[in-house]
């Protein structure tokens, strides 16, 4: 697992202390053991102006995505999770060791991203954009609901969308990938752009700002 990403989640700047480094190593092993990665995906056609998923007759009201997907004619909706044991273990550490809990949280986030990246690599998607998740940039969080239903994420990967709009298990995500055009990840649409401690410290999560 990429320790730099883990440290980013923990807002680390500069070198990591030995004790935290050890905690990270422990958590990497535990997260890998407790996680049960499940993923499901489906490909749809896109039409433009306005951006729409054709089969679902679903308009995507987002200028960010209109921009990123402008050269894409298809998109993949992908949902994945690390499973409920990660939630349970996290709560466990919240009771007995908060330091470990925050590290476990960061490691889980990183592992979810990495598992999903690895899975994408197996798909032979050709030119494609990065994953864009509802809630980031101006892509409405409300899209999670119809997209979750179409993908049957509860049945296929055991993820439910609560009445409050949260994915449970917590380490789950749903994203859209434009197919047919290349776009790299950037900080541009990140929801934390204005408040990000790393940015304030002059660091960037991605190569492009």
């Amino acid at each position, binding site marked *: 697992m990429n320790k730099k990403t883990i440290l980013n989640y923990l807002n680390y700047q500069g070198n990591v202390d030995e004790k935290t480094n050890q905690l990270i190593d422990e958590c990497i092993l535990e997260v890998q053991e407790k996680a049960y990665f499940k993923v499901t995906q489906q490909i749809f056609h896109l039409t433009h102006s306005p951006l729409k998923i054709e089969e679902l007759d679903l308009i995507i009201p987002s200028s960010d995505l209109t921009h990123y997907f402008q050269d894409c004619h298809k998109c993949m909706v992908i949902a994945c999770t690390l499973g409920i044991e990660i939630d349970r273990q996290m709560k466990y550490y919240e009771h007995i060791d908060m330091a470990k809990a925050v590290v476990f949280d960061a490691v889980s986030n990183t592992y979810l991203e990495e598992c999903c990246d690895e899975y994408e690599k197996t798909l032979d998607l050709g030119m494609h954009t990065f994953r864009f998740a509802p809630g980031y940039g101006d892509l409405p969080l409300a899209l999670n609901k119809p997209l979750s239903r179409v993908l049957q994420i509860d*049945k296929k990967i055991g993820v439910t969308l*609560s009445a409050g709009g*949260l994915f449970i298990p917590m380490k789950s995500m749903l994203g859209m990938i434009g197919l047919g055009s290349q776009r790299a990840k950037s900080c541009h649409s990140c929801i934390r752009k204005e408040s990000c401690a790393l940015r304030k410290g002059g660091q960037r999560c991605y190569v492009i700002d």
Partner: protein
Amino acid sequence: MLRDRLKKDLLIFDGAMGTQLQNAGLKAGEIPEVYNIEYPEIIIDIHERYLKAGADFITANTFGCNPLKMNDSGYCYCDLLKAAIKNAKIARERVNKEAYIVLDIGPIGQLLEPLGTLSLDEAYEIIASQVLMVKDDVDVVLLETMTDLYEVKAGILAVKENSDLPVFVTMTFEQNKRTLTGSDSITFVNVVEGLGADALGVNCSLGPTELKPIIDELLENTSLPILVQPNAGLPCLEDGQTKYQMTSSAFVEGMMDYMHQGVSMVGGCCGTTPEFIAAIKKVAPCHVTPRQVKKYTRVSSQNQTVTFNGQVVVCGERLNPTGKKKLKAALKEERYDECVVEGIKQQQAGADILDVNVGLPGIDEPSTMVKVIRLLQEVINLPLQIDSSSPAAIEKACRYYNGKPLINSVNGKDEVMEAIFPIVKKYGGVVIGLTLEDGIPLLAEERLKIARKIINKAAEYGIGKENIIIDCLTLTASAQQKEVQETLKALTLVKQELGVHTVLGVSNVSFGLPNRPLLNRTFLTLALHSGLDLPIINPLDQQLMDSIAAYNVLYNFDQDSSHYIVMQSNVQLETVKNPSTFTLEDMIIHGLKDEVQTKTKEVLQAHEAMDVINQMIIPALNQVGQDYETNKIFLPQLMQSAQTTKLAFEIVKSTFAIDSQTKGPIMMCTVEGDVHDIGKNIVKVVLESYGYQVIDLGKDVKVEKVVEAYHRCHPKMIGLSALMTTTVVNMKRTIEALKAIPVDCPIWVGGAVLTQEIADEIGADYYSEDAMASVTLLNEILKEE
């Protein structure tokens, strides 16, 4: 009668509905249940084809017909449900064949508490409403594709309490042999049999071949009729779409063994068609192959089962307020977190089951029991022992417990058995029977007689002896020295004559004598040799646990002594640790929480408690805060230091009347609808390290609960946390409700999506960006106090 046929006739279920509907034109994103009203002929046609293929059951198209899932369908779920049953009936009439109409109930689509947000009661109400609506028009209810055993429990209770219909349950297992919420097949069997389902089985997720390990376990462990509905093999992706490629003949080949090994019902799930069902029907034997199933005494949590099979099973006794001042206070002050920590410690020490007793004068025992059980089950996988003298508390705990509990207890008195046995039968538990009536008989033979009476009486309620564990009762050596050995004799007699497992609370034996641990572990060893299976002990007593480990070696339960060897090597490792040379300040700054308590005790011998706080702890803590703010240390280190400080504070407090030094109380929660409470917990730990008393209401806390807690706790400040924009709405509602009281303390908010602007918009008094900012804020606001 369907129930009578289940163990005799091999019956045929139908196959997939979804794949058939897609072939008939159902598009991605369309809701299949809507076809019940908009295209009834398509549904009727699918049913007809399955019936003609040989199905004995018509699974109505009601999988997602619940108010939550049908919310966006444009129809009331009631109408879709009724239309589905009507379509099934029409198909049956048209084919003119005897067939059972199945009310099909899939997962509600929301995860249940404690890790999810849907309560057992809400799940129950949803399923009960479905059952009540059509119960006169269906023959059986099928809870299918289930992944959450707690939802299954809600479903079985809802069906059985609202109808006389048979109820079948199928769960979906992954290749790791667990459901997506972590239940294994033996736990599934143990819980669902206990709740009184009429049949159980597996469906979906995998094909007939991949399901073999699960089906084998079911065949070996359940005496209930088994239903098997696999997918048409494993799915594969074609152009981003899921497809099933298994042929009907390969499917039948995969199913053949099961049909001759004792499965009662066979059918198909995703990807199967009428062709599959016809192929199955062609080769299926008419009768169910009889099976012999060995009965075990088993208790379960949601995803772990303890089987009594010779080895010693340790029940941790520490979650019981009797004689424990700290736990008493924690229960009274609703600091349930301490109960959870106590549970975790016992789990770490090697307990297999945890006793839970919350009986205190002036406490609402039933509801406290449920709260504590829910919190424990969120993080601890061990089965629990529900321990109470109140039938009301036992009943409520059994209803809300997730799994098959151990129930403590009944005794030989008729009125006690009459109160408890119906609960044991209804919810499916294993019950402890105490060998006493009006008093404890002195002789072993008399205790045996009471044990026999309990077992016979239980049988009248349909409770088998595998669900009873007999307590032969430990007597105190200081008062009844002669009778101590009667207990040992009784253990042997009960086991030999009645063939049941046995339990003892061990430590009573030493009451009133010096060096109690010596007597306890000697008695334990004798009792184990005499036939004790379930000692109820303090698992943190290392010597007791060592005696058990040694016993397991000597009786060949610990194969190759492997567990024992690991245990002993850990002991040696611990003894070579060097004593630390750090100062208390260093320990706080570096977060050395394992050593800080010893160090604090040491410095307290040479310094006044107030000096320890003001000259050591506070300056160290200030240093930590400053380092964090200047990016010299980061969140994990801040947490280490905060936890270390909290431990140091606890030691100082225990030696000093420190109440005047405690700041607060501060009330905190993560708002309704939000389960991400790590942020709130981070703030809580840091506040506690600064000496604030924090009343933590937990996560997903309903608005009215916050209001209620305000009246009860009189906080100096209220902190609310939310992670998502969608739950900030609930934060606003909570603030509005609090201000309407009106509250006489400020409200501050925080969380990933919050900003000062949002905080102002929703009417919060203050916003803080992180834990240290919260400390600064609270110090500033509350400094006048």
